[in-house]
């Protein structure tokens, strides 16, 4: 299951307009904890591909999106369902912790 690259241009269609819930990882290349979160998010994408889609937003390149959703700390994961943020997870956490919150 591939991870969607989300940006200012495709956010509305691929995240807000998605039929499936979408888990979006707000990250930056210079952020150490984000690098550790990346493989965890990839595993979640693999394991939960029946139920959710997973995408990544580079906050350096998409500051409008980060601002719109009040991102003030990275990594931050937001689960969007029917275009609405349903769950926000701030900071690096284990796969189990994240999956628990997504239930």
């Amino acid at each position, binding site marked *: 299951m591939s991870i969607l690259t989300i940006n200012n241009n495709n956010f509305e269609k691929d995240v807000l307009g998605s039929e499936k819930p979408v888990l979006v990882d707000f990250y930056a290349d210079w952020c*150490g*904890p984000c690098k550790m979160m990346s493989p965890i998010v990839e595993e979640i994408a693999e394991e939960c591909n029946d139920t959710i889609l997973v995408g990544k937003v580079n*906050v350096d390149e998409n500051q409008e999106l980060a601002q719109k959703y009040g991102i003030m*700390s*990275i990594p931050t994961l937001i689960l969007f369902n029917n275009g609405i943020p349903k769950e*926000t997870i701030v900071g690096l956490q284990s796969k189990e*912790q994240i999956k628990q919150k997504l239930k």
Partner: protein
Amino acid sequence: MENYYGFENGITGNELYQKGIKQASNLEIDLLKEEVVKISHLNSNFLVHTTNNQIESKVVIIAIGNQKKHLDIDGLNKFEGRGVSYCAICDGFFYRNKDVVVIGSGTYAISEVNDLLNIANNITILTNGNKPPDFRADNVSIISKPIKLVRGNTKVEEIEFDDNSSIKTDGIFIAQGVAGVTDLSKKLGLIIEKNSIVTNKDMETNIPGIYACGDATGGLLQISKAVYEGTKAGLSAIKYLNNRR
């Protein structure tokens, strides 16, 4: 400690610590008495930042104990990730040209201020009743009044002091005391649970080359458990170094 094996008359924590340090120096192991303020990645190695030095290393074993640094300020917890941060290097980006405060008064707080100097507009160090640090910079001011509460709607907006005066702010960076388990972990990207570093049975963390042992990993806060974990961490580190050759 009255019940640690081999010490029939008990021994104080400090005495055992001093004996351990002496034992290590007898083995001609280098010892630096410096405060660690940050650990960062450097290619496939790590850089341990102390007050006066930067030490490059292939492995790091975190055995810093786990001092509880509970900051009892109304409203603080509720804004974590919405204006309250524990890591200037990670979150400073979101406060470009904004006004921020750093809560703390020691070396660690100054290190966090330094990470924000060229990003934030104005930085105010809040010592929360402690002695102000000897630190001067153009865009840094210091307030040493005790803090009463943090206020805001969806994110941090204002801090009120015990004397009912207040200041507006866009962000709060917590850097009280020395850098602890949570502070170092957040900067490095170590997974923590309930303020303890998560390891496997070989004391490996989620980052290859970084190990943790003792109170830093939570569970039983006993010297016997710390000694066992220290041994495991040391053996795992040796194995890791051998495999890297």
